């Protein structure tokens, strides 16, 4: 868990030392090769004019982590999503600019007034890479698996699909889905990576088998040509691919011939490979590496994740945090601007609500999220927490001391939490930032006494995302004991009218901030770096890459 922080320290100090050693060596080399132009500066000068897309070439893409289980509903994990997005298509396409749902494998659809019945007309002529047709029956089989799960095959139910009842195949091109309750989030749910369509042959396999890349057969623009588990996946373009979303930059096969996805966990190796021309495109440029990537003339891409902001979530069932005034005090005592300014970059905008400003249904609550340590102190005084001997407040012999785990999945979680701990000492609160192995975290994170706060975020470009994070039947990050919150979330998840639904999302955001359940830090991006001969870089709605439009202008 402390991996990212130790990497940070050693790689920065390393850079200095390396610079000294390499500097001397380079001086000699520079004289010998004054006429040869290094790849890094060559890459820096090419972007001025973009010509027509070129077909062909191999893209080398470096990924931070290896993939885990690739069963579609569990592929929110970025390495999984980044791979599956290339080999599976989705029923609908969420335009990443407008967030509108547009046709893809479905040519058109109708929804009844109560959002309990959806009928999709499936595009003609789409096939999976194993040759089987992607028709209404295949679509029905996919959503039956994702919506209902399977006891026999050990398939869990997808988070993206709520209240699913079943499917009816009307004819070869028409399928109807029905729901036990209104499910307005379903249409967007058909566009996400977790609903990637796979061949019926894949769906017939048990969970463990569906986890493995070799068994995943999609209809996407790329297919897997070879794989070395945990190290490399090679993709090749499918020549007969002809069913890109209507609003895609181009139609037909992908421009690239081949994509090599290589797992490179070490930050300095990943960034160094990009800068030295050994790789074309990398995922996960840490905030502290952004300047060196841009400084060397490379392009940074920072698509937003459009969901619940990265932040701290406060658990009302904890004996200290059960008092709403204490939660409100912690909210007022956290200087999020300082977090963004000292640890992150402009690609991490300061949060102004529970949801990102690029999320659907967002309302600006920045008035209620101002840094006010005086107010925090007043609230804590009034709640009976008096200053103790060592500066930490006390009440009835207990210290105002709270535990939080470093969240390995969050960027620079340890540094962020340590800064918060430092800020909270000013209001007499002790925050214990605990780095821990995943086993300890899994065992203790469901215990509000041991883990008073949770550091997390969740990305999905649908109003349902706030329910995913807070509802007792979903991620339930605050271990909620608040029936009113559940009712608010249920209401927004089953409201068919978009305006009314957005109003309910606004209510939920206000309620969560009012109750002090969340201290939002920043709107989390996914940061990528690429050489500027890489064109057509695109992302789906929450920042996972799509290689379909990518082409290389490598001289």
């Amino acid at each position, binding site marked *: 868990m402390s991996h990212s922080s130790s990497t940070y320290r*050693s*790689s920065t100090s*390393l850079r200095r*030392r*390396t610079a000294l*050693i*390499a500097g001397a*060596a*380079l001086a000699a080399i520079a004289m010998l090769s004054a006429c040869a132009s*290094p790849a890094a500066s060559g890459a820096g000068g090419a972007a001025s004019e973009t010509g027509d897309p070129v077909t062909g070439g191999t893209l*080398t893409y*470096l990924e931070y982590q*290896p993939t*885990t*289980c690739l069963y579609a509903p*569990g*592929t*929110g*994990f970025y390495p999984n999503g980044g791979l599956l997005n290339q080999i599976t298509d989705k029923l609908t396409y969420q335009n990443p600019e407008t967030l509108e749902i547009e046709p893809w494998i479905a040519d058109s659809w109708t929804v009844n007034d109560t959002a309990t019945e959806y009928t999709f007309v499936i595009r003609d002529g789409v096939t999976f890479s194993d040759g089987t047709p992607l028709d209404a029956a295949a679509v029905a089989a996919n959503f039956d698996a994702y919506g209902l799960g399977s006891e026999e095959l*050990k398939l*869990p*139910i*997808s*988070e993206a699909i709520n209240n699913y009842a079943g499917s009816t195949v009307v004819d070869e091109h028409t399928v109807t889905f029905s729901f036990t309750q209104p499910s307005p989030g379903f249409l967007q749910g058909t566009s996400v990576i977790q609903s990637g369509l796979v061949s019926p042959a894949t769906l017939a396999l048990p*969970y*463990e088998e569906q*986890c*493995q890349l070799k068994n995943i057969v999609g209809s996407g623009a790329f297919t897997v040509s070879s794989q*070395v*588990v*945990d*190290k490399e996946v090679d993709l090749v373009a499918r020549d007969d691919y002809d069913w890109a979303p209507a609003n895609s930059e181009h139609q037909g096969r992908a421009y690239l011939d081949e994509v*090599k996805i*290589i797992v*490179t*966990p*070490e930050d*300095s*190796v990943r960034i*160094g*490979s990009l*800068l*030295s021309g*050994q*790789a074309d495109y990398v995922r996960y440029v840490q905030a502290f590496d952004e300047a060196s990537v841009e400084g060397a003339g490379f392009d940074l891409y920072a698509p937003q994740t459009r969901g619940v902001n990265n932040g701290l979530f406060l658990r009302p069932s904890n004996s200290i945090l059960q008092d709403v005034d204490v939660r409100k005090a912690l909210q007022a005592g956290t200087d999020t601007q300082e977090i963004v300014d000292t640890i992150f970059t402009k690609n991490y905008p300061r949060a102004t609500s529970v949801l990102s400003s690029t999320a659907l249904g967002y309302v600006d609550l920045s008035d209620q999220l101002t840094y006010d340590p005086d107010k925090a102190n007043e609230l804590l005084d009034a709640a009976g927490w008096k200053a103790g001997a060592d500066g930490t407040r006390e009440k009835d012999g207990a210290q105002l001391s709270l535990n939080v785990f470093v969240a390995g999945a969050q960027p620079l979680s340890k540094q962020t939490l340590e800064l918060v701990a430092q800020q909270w000492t000013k209001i007499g609160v002790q925050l214990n930032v605990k780095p821990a*192995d*995943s*086993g*300890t*975290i*899994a*065992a*203790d994170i*469901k215990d509000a006494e041991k883990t008073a706060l949770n550091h*997390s975020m*969740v990305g999905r470009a649908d109003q349902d995302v706030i329910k995913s994070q807070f509802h007792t*039947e*979903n*991620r339930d*990050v605050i271990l909620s004991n608040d029936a009113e919150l559940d009712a608010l979330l249920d209401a927004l998840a089953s409201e068919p009218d978009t305006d009314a639904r957005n109003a309910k999302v606004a209510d939920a955001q206000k309620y969560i901030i009012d109750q002090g359940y969340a201290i939002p830090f920043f709107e989390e991006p996914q940061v990528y770096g690429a050489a500027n001969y890489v064109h057509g870089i695109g992302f789906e709605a929450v920042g996972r890459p799509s290689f379909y439009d990518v082409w290389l202008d490598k001289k």
Partner: protein
Amino acid sequence: MTRYLTGRIGQAVLVLWAAFTVTFVLLQALPGDSIMIKFENPELGLSPAQILEVRARYGIDEPAVLQYIHTLMGFLAGDFGYSIETGTPVLQRLAEGLPETAKLAAGGFLLAVVLAVTIAFVSSYTRFAWIRGVLLAVPSLFISIPTFWLGILLIQVFSFQLRLVPVIGGTEAQSLILPVLTLAVPISAPLAQVLCRSLDAVYTQPFVAVAQAKGASRQWILWRHVARNALVPTLTVAGLTFGELIAGSVITETVFGRNGIGRLTEQAVTAQDIPVMQAIVVLAAFVFVSVNLIVDLLYPVLDPRLAAKGRVAV
């Protein structure tokens, strides 16, 4: 000899069983378990009720004694179970990783021996005290360099700055150069140090003076008389460095993004993937036991006095 061998093999089996059992107990004692870690991952978005269902399906909550018996029987039958994190058979994962690590470890070990022998022999043969002084300082320097740092340093200098060896997309041989060097440096240090010491010790022996008195050349004395006698303690240390090879490969493979047993270990520990960890520990114990057995059998070859006793001293 046969009796000695059967005894040693019996010992080895006992050590393996003990390693298996201790690992099993320790892994059971860890907080949490792999099913919990995998399925409570928020990315999956499973509700607490669904997680309980999954736990029941995997039989993770059955009594530890039953699990121990199942796992032990499986190991005896060569079935190491499935990786919980990826769903692949553990045997397959080991089979994929082992050749990669074997190449790395063999290369690293050979280079370490070459480095150690060079340092020791040059320092002992040279007539210049300052060369000797510098060379004798090298092992201390080598042992204090963190593998992690060395790996990144080598990549930065030789790959990113000098562009001599690619770390991404090179050939098999190219991809081995820097990791082998990274692994060899810390392992060469104890070998060089022990070899230097024993060379010095052997030089003070009376038989060396006799050989000198008879007019043998320095070279002859070093190779014929001193080196051979100095090798026995070095061999013991060489056997022990296998442990460091395993530990070193965890870091080296992670830094260089190689998919060997070391990387597998790192991932299994992170995800608390119990079947994988169990198998890795048994594998490591097996390698250790085998290497030590080989080392023991080599002693009499180097030192006839040991063979003459009829029984090998350990």
